[in-house]
């Protein structure tokens, strides 16, 4: 079953394009990464899918329910958790009171379990919470009613690396138990750790949907090499190696590591960096118009 299905979805603000012609189909068993640079239309898409914004054209179905129908949207929201990119709580209440409130509105069968994972100072007023604690509270409220679908807009902002790891683990576990996750981010390395498939959006339009492994395979590694002598460009014309710039030498490597090292070993290497491709690289190499 599809948890999110959009068809020819348009959202315009007057003449300004938010998203255009968006066809998405997210399956119930997957963790879907929704990638795009800032301002690409990720939040607009999420808000339109969840009914906060009214679509200009096209249709959205959430858990098989038509979002444009008020009653169906309420029905769908019973089984949806949402963590917005930016949000806040009433500051003058404690974390416990905030969670009590959400529990009354949507249920909280997983609340205690989540509190154990993401410990927060429950009896302290939210105004005294650190940014990380507020983020944890947000995560708890998104998952506490054991939803079938959780939509997360840039969820790891403000979490320290240790917490990020915990969060990723939880997402994977929840997914195993049957919760579909729709996860937006502008950081490829973050998404690749948990997602099965990714959609890439740019300027309000979906460019591609790929399995994460295929995308990582395609996008390869980036090597930046500084040599004393000039490297002969023609030598680098190899399968799986793509020359991006000469000085310093910047390469995308998807295959042919041995040959590359053989070639480079003939030069005096002053510095070398090899890293995974990030979203900017992926855009630059595959989707630049």
């Amino acid at each position, binding site marked *: 079953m599809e948890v999110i299905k959009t068809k020819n979805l348009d959202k315009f*603000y007057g003449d300004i394009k938010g998203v255009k012609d968006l066809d998405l189909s997210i399956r119930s068993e997957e963790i879907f990464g929704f990638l795009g640079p800032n301002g690409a239309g990720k939040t607009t898409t999420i*808000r339109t899918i*969840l009914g*906060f*914004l*009214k679509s200009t054209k096209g249709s959205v179905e959430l858990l098989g329910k038509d979002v444009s129908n*008020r*009653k169906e*949207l*309420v*029905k769908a*929201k*019973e089984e*949806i*958790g*949402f963590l*917005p990119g*930016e*949000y*806040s*709580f*009433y500051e*003058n*209440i404690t974390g416990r009171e905030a969670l009590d*409130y*959400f529990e*009354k*509105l*949507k249920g909280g069968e997983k609340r205690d379990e989540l509190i154990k994972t993401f410990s927060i100072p429950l009896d302290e007023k939210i105004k005294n919470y650190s940014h990380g604690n507020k983020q944890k509270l*947000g995560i708890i*409220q998104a998952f506490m009613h054991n939803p079938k679908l959780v939509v997360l807009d840039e969820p790891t902002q403000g979490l320290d690396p240790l917490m990020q790891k915990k969060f990723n683990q939880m997402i994977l576990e929840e997914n195993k138990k049957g919760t579909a996750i729709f996860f937006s981010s502008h950081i490829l390395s973050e998404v690749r750790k948990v997602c099965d498939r990714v959609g890439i959006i740019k300027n309000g339009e979906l460019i591609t949907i790929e399995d994460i492994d295929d995308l990582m395979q395609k996008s390869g590694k980036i090597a930046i090499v500084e040599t004393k002598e000039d490297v002969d460009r023609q030598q680098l014309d190899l399968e799986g190696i793509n020359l991006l710039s000469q000085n310093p030498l910047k390469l995308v490597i998807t295959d042919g590591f041995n040959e590359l090292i053989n070639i480079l070993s003939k030069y005096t290497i002053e510095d070398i960096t090899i890293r995974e491709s990030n979203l900017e690289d992926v855009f630059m190499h595959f989707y630049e118009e």
Partner: protein
Amino acid sequence: MFEITIFDFKKNLKGKIGLSVILIGLVSLIIGLFPSIQESGFSFEEYIQNLPPALAEAFGATIANYSTIEGFLGMEFYSWFWTVALGAYFAYKGGSLISGEIETKRIDLVLSSPLTRSRYFVEKFLSYVPDAFLFNIILGLSVYVGSFLINETISPILLAKVHFLSIPFWLACSAIGGVFSVFIDEERRAKLFATGFIFIAYIIETITVQSDFSFLGKMSFTHYYKPITILSTGEIDLINPLILSMATLVIVFISLIAFEKKDIQT
């Protein structure tokens, strides 16, 4: 049902009690002054005769008897603080009903729960009902006890009438705030417009009262709630609370339609 109403009512309880305490202080001061003013032999009738007729009528001064505690309180407390200032307060609170939730980015977490926008709005709006009861109970009792302490008696039935009828009036003021809060995303501006509406409508009512433009005064909710008249004559025209309640329903209905259609952009 009513989770949001209860939450919203409880949320700022301290602030509301604080405001009640200020009003109790004010009422005590006014009641405390009454015996000495009565003793001084100051002629209110003369004072009223010297007021511009329009102003005197607007304040209800033409019907009130100032040598009684009812008339004195009606003029000094109920016609301004109780009606206009608290009306503006309810409009001010209403002005943040939706705009405040959007501006602070709190709305997403609640609206992603399984409830319609209309329920959200109505439940939030309904939290003004216990607010209105709270002020009425605290201040009604204070006025009664205060009068008792200076050996004056106010009819509790009269007092109950005045206080009870403030509820439809304040709710209409809150509804004005609510509709501004839907149409204007910026909380501060929505509050300003709502409060401004109550004040300006009241001023228009006051200055047009004896003119050919007195029909303009009917735009003001204060036209339909005159505690001074109730206190002085004991009479209630039931059409007034009915008009206020109808106005509230219409304004809330408009707010709901607009809110259901609105793009919620935090």
